[in-house]
């Protein structure tokens, strides 16, 4: 089931056996890196006579983290299950349009708009999940195919922003408590629910089991198909929430709001940066939020330093690969010890 089987053999020739000592988990590394980044960033920004973590800075980081955080929490679930979702970016555009067009500027239509957008998102997730489990298509191709179908629909029906979000609903995007946007708190609440679901409930455990080894999970009586479909539905609903949030910020729906920001690959990057194994079975939401915060902080620091925007991409790519290389080192070291012992 896992899309990106890397076949990295755990059996590597190793002469000496490293003494088992307590090691930092990837989650700890992520947050240490985040703190280090904040310190270094504060110093660098401070050298220019500005402050990184003033009210505007915190607001900036959290606003950036909100949309990506919502997608990435959903993406965490599919990746943990050993799957992948490349359709989230177009889905975000679609749900923002559905929400904004249903609301059409009327306060009374806010709830129906949100519900309809979430229902469509859940439907898309269901299709993703069923194509993967019933048609047995590789998740990479299945969700890429669904993404292309969504793209065709968007390109055929929309040329630009459409719909209108009532002023009341825009509060969701702009209200804040001190420097903390309400939406960021909602995102953290969603992440907390996801954390609880993954680490405290049976279906959540099943996701880890399926991602670890789908055959073993199936033989142990885990309803693997249902688990994969559930993960995809939840992921799409999270993308739907992102679309609704972005609609509330933009005041209307925009077909390419998700793809312009590259939320498909960006969310995968955030998840992996957060220490979740791309092949599934290991990781979690807490790390993902750390990864999202790192990406958001990097962006904010670069903005404050007025760095060329293209340089951001370069740094982002390097950070991503370096982080995963670090995790991979630890994984193989641990596995080699396990096998040889």
């Amino acid at each position, binding site marked *: 089931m896992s899309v*990106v089987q890397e076949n990295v053999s755990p059996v590597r020739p190793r002469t000496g056996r490293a003494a088992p000592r307590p090691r930092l988990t990837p989650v700890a590394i992520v947050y240490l890196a985040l703190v280090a980044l904040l310190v270094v960033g504060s110093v660098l920004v401070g050298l220019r006579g500005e402050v990184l973590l003033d009210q505007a800075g915190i607001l900036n980081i959290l606003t950036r983290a909100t949309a990506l955080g919502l997608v990435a929490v959903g993406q965490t679930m599919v990746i943990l299950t050993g799957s992948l979702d490349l359709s989230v970016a177009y889905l975000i555009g679609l749900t923002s349009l559905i929400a904004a067009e249903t609301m059409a500027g009327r306060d009374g239509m806010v709830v129906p708009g949100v519900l309809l957008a979430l229902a469509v998102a859940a439907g898309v997730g269901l299709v993703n999940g069923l194509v993967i489990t019933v*048609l*047995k298509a590789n998740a990479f191709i299945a969700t890429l195919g669904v993404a292309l179908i969504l*793209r065709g629909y968007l*390109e055929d029906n929309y040329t630009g922003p459409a719909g209108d979000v009532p002023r009341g609903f825009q509060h969701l995007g702009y209200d804040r408590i001190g420097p903390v946007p309400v939406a960021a708190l909602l995102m953290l609440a969603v992440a907390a629910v996801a954390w609880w679901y993954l680490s405290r409930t049976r279906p959540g455990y099943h996701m880890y089991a399926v991602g670890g080894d789908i055959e073993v999970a199936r033989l142990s009586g885990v309803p693997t198909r249902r688990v994969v479909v559930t993960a995809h539905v939840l992921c799409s609903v999270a993308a739907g929430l992102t679309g609704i949030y972005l609609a509330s910020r933009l005041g209307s729906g925009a077909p390419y709001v998700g793809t312009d920001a590259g939320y498909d*690959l960006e969310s995968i990057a955030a998840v992996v940066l957060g220490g979740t194994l791309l092949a599934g079975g290991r990781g979690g939401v807490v790390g993902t939020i750390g990864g999202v915060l790192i990406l958001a902080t990097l962006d904010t620091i670069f903005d404050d330093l007025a760095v060329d925007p*293209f340089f951001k991409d370069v*740094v982002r790519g390097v950070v991503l*690969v370096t982080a995963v290389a670090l995790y991979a080192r630890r994984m193989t070291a641990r596995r080699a010890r396990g096998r040889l012992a």
Partner: protein
Amino acid sequence: MTREAGVAARREGAASWRPRLAEGTAPVLVVLLLLLVGLAVTGPAYDEPSGYLALLKRAAPLMILAIGQYFVIVSGGFDLSVGALVTAGVVIAARLIDGDESATTGVVLLVLGFGLLVGLVNGLVTTKLLVPSFIVTLGMMLVLDGAVFLWTDGAPRGALSAGFRMFGRGSVDVPLLGEVPWSVLILLAILVAAALFMRGGTGRALVAVGDNEAAVRLSGGQVDRLRLLAFVLSGLLAAVAAILLGGFAGVSAQVGNGLEFRAITAVVLGGVLLGGGRGSVVAAAAGALSLEALFTLLNLLGVSGALESAVQGVIIIAAVAYAALGGGLRQRLRWRPKRNSTQPAPS
């Protein structure tokens, strides 16, 4: 020309020294044949060989990318950096040549070298640092996209020379065949070389790495070197595709956009298993040609460009589902105990 390739591939499949053509090759050839027949029926331009030659010329860059992508996919990886690499190649060439004809040769070599280098980095990080290739090449895509535009201040500048563009749009007089586009000749040379390579020991070992890396390692195969080779070939072929596309489509910052997914789609359409270990390089190239033929057909049928991607989406899902379910069905229909060994190996 493509029909001949298809027939040749099937004939080889029947020959005794190569008992079976790789699984999943037949369907894509059937699809390709149907699409070509469809083209012949709908498009007046496809009554004569020149129409098909033009199609092949248009498809050449994608087919070359698909061949490169095939090496990586069949050995169990992904290369998401090829689209960005194509853009980088074109932008670099335009900036360095800047209309100066005498710089052409050097820049062509430089672009090829750049592709080689990118592939080498991808491969080294994947094999030595044990980072999943999906992440490595995703990172490389970000780095390339960012670095190229950092270098050009956001918009591609300069111009390609006529000599550079010749590869993408020029043609050459070949005895017996008449005018044949350069890109088609380059494509055929690469395709033949790739097919021969995959027949050889190294090619087979590459497929084996994708099937069961541990087994190859234990039997003394140079796994890391093989995977590195796959990435280098993919980078090199992406650079070739960049040279062809630069000539064919001109300089733009969007020239490589989405090509990585299109190449992966083409490879999968060719029946190559994502995750590695199954599929043939000819089928991967045929998948790319099918994709291009499909777009041409949709155009001729007047399907709006917007719906094109939706159709593409439906088709790749159908193709993969057919490969997954169809394989199971076939297996059930002509049941043989030995066939169990074709199950994907648990990794």
